[in-house]
């Protein structure tokens, strides 16, 4: 309680390329951090002495079909013309936080914010089976987002690993959706968030179901028990609620000032039902109600 305000004022370096950024991050080690939108880093009580700002690196920007540069903002994702298969990502981006944050917070920052259980894009990308391109001192590689998150948030994370982009495929017939629950109408961290992706056949029966749950545990994670419960269903409300119950049976919830753990479990069926409904939203009647960036 002694420090009246956040007074740390890190210096900022502005590399012009991914390679240069990676090199500087490697040299700085724990004394440096990549700076994207800054909405997480600038709230850190103990930021590193140096920020390596990414904003001048053109390669990290831009939205191409199925690929988003690490600097893509939540607002840009919310406004992007994503196909129904990737709807979960759009809904997640659109309902996260509020305009001032969505306008600057980035996909790369969202995936890399340490200790941020409520990051909205994470469950969406997990359910979409996204892959990410990573640059390190050893070169570039592409890996699944689940594996990436495990290493990036692990104890032996490589401080120089830079997320370059993320991508996900959007086969015809695939649908995805997202829902989050808050105490107030919005503008706050999700207490529970659920992303669902599934391939629907002509009769609407789901296969290749992937479900991820955010906010409940310390990190968002896939939930195979819920996936099994949804496979072979039409993602109807009853099936979604059953899947929520299956998830509740295996998740170990966090208690914190935002919500008690028991509550996060109890509401899972309802939030699953909302996420499933988002999957089934007819793209033809889905009027674009997203706000302006």
């Amino acid at each position, binding site marked *: 309680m002694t420090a*009246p305000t956040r007074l740390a004022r890190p210096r900022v370096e502005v590399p012009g390329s991914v390679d240069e950024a990676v090199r500087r991050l490697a040299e700085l080690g724990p004394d440096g951090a990549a700076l994207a939108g800054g909405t997480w880093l600038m709230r850190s009580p103990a930021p590193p002495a140096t920020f390596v700002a990414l904003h001048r690196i053109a390669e990290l920007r831009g939205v191409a079909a199925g690929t988003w540069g690490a600097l893509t903002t939540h607002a840009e994702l919310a406004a992007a013309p994503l196909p129904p298969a990737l709807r979960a990502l759009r809904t997640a981006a659109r309902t996260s936080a509020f305009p001032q944050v969505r306008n600057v917070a980035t996909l790369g920052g969202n995936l890399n914010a340490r200790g941020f259980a409520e990051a909205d894009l994470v469950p969406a990308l997990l359910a979409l089976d996204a892959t990410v391109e990573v640059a390190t001192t050893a070169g570039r590689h592409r890996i699944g987002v689940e594996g990436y998150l495990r290493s990036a948030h692990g104890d032996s994370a490589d401080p120089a690993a830079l997320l370059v982009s993320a991508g996900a495929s959007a086969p015809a017939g695939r649908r995805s959706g997202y829902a989050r629950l808050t105490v107030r109408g919005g503008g706050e961290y999700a207490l529970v968030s659920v992303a669902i992706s599934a391939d629907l056949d002509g009769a609407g029966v789901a296969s290749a179901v992937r479900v991820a749950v955010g906010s409940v545990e310390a990190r968002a994670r896939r939930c195979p028990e819920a996936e099994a419960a949804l496979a072979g269903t039409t993602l109807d409300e009853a099936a979604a609620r059953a899947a929520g119950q299956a998830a509740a049976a295996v998740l170990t919830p966090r208690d914190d000032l935002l919500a008690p753990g028991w*509550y996060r479990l*109890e509401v899972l069926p309802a939030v699953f039902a909302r996420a499933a409904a988002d999957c089934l939203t007819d793209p033809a009647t889905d009027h674009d109600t997203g706000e302006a960036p």
Partner: protein
Amino acid sequence: MTALSEPAARAVPATGAVGRSIPRPDAEAKVRGAAVYTVDLAEAGMLHAAVLRAELSAARITRLDTSAAAGLPGVHAVVTGADAPALSGMLVVKDQTVFAIDTVRYAGEPIAAVAAETPEQAAAALAAIELELEPLDPVVDLDAAVAPDARLIHPGWADYAAPVDGFRSGNIAWDARLEKGTDEEWSAAFAAAHRVVSDEFRVPRQHQTPLEPHACVARYTTGRYTVHTSTQFPHSVRSRTAELLGIRPSAVRVLVPTVGGGFGGKLDAMLEPMACLLARRSGRPVRLVNSRAEELATAGPRENAVLRLRTAVDAEGRILAQEADVLTDNGANSSGETVICAGLPALALGSTYRIPLARYRTRVVYTNTAPTAAFRGVGGPYVVFAQESHLDHVARALGVDRRELRLRNVLRPGEAMVNGQALDDPILIEALESVERRAPWDRERPATPGKLRGKAVVPLTWLTNPGPGEASVSLSDDGTVLVTTAATEIGTGAIQTGVRQIVAERLGVHVDDVLVSTPDTDAAGFDNGAQGSRTTYGAGNAAGEAAGELREQILRTAADMLEAAETDLEIAGDVVQVAGSPGASVTLAAVSAAAMWSSGPLSATGRFVAQPPEFDAGCVIGGLFSTINATSSHAHAAEVEVDPDTGEVTVLTYVVAQDVGRAINPAMIVGQVNGAVAQGVGYALYEDLRIGPDGRVLDRNLETYRIPTALDVPPIDLEILENPLPTGPYGAKGVAEPPIVPVAAVLACAVSDAIGVTVTDLPLSPFAVLAALRANRR
């Protein structure tokens, strides 16, 4: 920083200023970002202060050494309890020092303060202060604090001065009772009762959260302190700062820039004494501003409370006798209003309904937590929440319709409130009828599939703060009128529109030509502060009286100039004219000039304090507030929907009928009702300033302390009822406070109706509602 703003276009006619929704003249500076708040002040040579605050809520200070800190670069002053040993307290119990001395009584209590060239140097100095604390067992729970074996938070309580006699002992800072009826009557009522219903309610702390935090800039020169500060009550800051520094009040001059919100949280000195000590020690101006975390942890919130009610009713649900045992949390000392307001719960319980026999007791309890303070509607929101939820319980127990139960008990004209005070001219029935017209009680509207629907209606009598104030009004050389007062504009519009409209109306001048000085305790006499909805009423009365006298002076001078009788003259805009013959006129500027060298400048001072009403003094024991001044009548009704899967509450309709006496500026009233209902929605549904078992405030930011957003406030259907108060300016009563008072009650009763369980705790968070639903299902 000055409110002497140049008037905009003359959209408003000269007369008939009262009753118009004129836009506030300070709005333009605010939308341009040009208004200067205390947080915006900067002076050459200004130092930045920071406060070392206790990390523990109960401890003995075993070592405090500031010598290393004092020697650091850029550090100009370090002060501690040794520099300010005096005791003070908000009007009553003098139990507070500026800094903790020997003992820490709450987490966040100031231990020392530093002033340095930069905020970074100030932070470094704090880190260099050597402090050792020996922990004590914190006393946090209210019931535990009043238990006979509780550790005393102030072992020397009996030695504290208290200018008012009262009942105090140990951890009970104040004990107020209201007792009506003899023991025989009491036993007879309970013996005859058809039912006796008991409930226990718990409410948390609610933080005012003004967007501008507490902030001040202090200077010291030759024995006097000049403090610019964000306050609602400059004279309180003056006298409390003086008492805490052990100096006379006139040695402190308080000036108030634009204030970024108060809501009760800025009535007392808080940072000012520390800034003054540092300014004196350093010889430099010193700025001290609370961080949001400090604001939440240490700036006194609405008190948490436990309320136990027991009511005897007859078969129709008429109240025969009621008992209440209320514990309210004073926190670690009496720096806020909680002790002064100890008498309010009894009045809030017994001013809306007929309570033939009462045994009400409120104990204000010391705990090892941050001191509590006033928040809009002091004492009201939780007492009314408890009373109304309890009455709903009674209605359900008897099978009586909930609205009908209220109609059977609500006070009618000519009846007396529980303290024996006659309720002058209540229009509670009219208020209930007003909401009934717009939201018929029997209207059955189907719930959204899967949702639970509930409704409630609550009548309310509320008060206007009676406190004293004076104001001066003078005629300037250009014919404009200047009001000089220490009454403070905190955002409600009471000064910027209310007082100006009253003065304009009284004089007959353009409202644009009435200017109001900024508060300066060296320039204006006492004013009781922006509290209890009193500014338009109290300061308006004082300024109105002064304007009336100035009007006579103006007419006297003009009569000489026009060679007409005073009684034939009228003021119309910027001229004085002979009524009926507009050709014969002089400008106010000319009147001012003519007076200058004949009678001297024209000016007058008005004063006001409400006269205490008659009441049954025998029934009030220890209450510092024993009567209710300038009552107004209200009714609120709401319809809510509850999602049984998540416990989410949606407010569908919100209907208000409010007796304002006379609407001086209807748009400002709408603004006060909107804002108060929004804060009430926050209190009812979200806000909960949590305190850990160790006494520390857990909510450190606006992420976890949830105030309503634009998505959370229901549409409000307001009918303004005019029921003029003979002693109010043009009939006006207090407006700003009452509309927060019934909100938690009406929403809790509606949620209870929806879920079929009496809600006993606030807030009705989705967690609480879902837990209640689950418990009921089992």
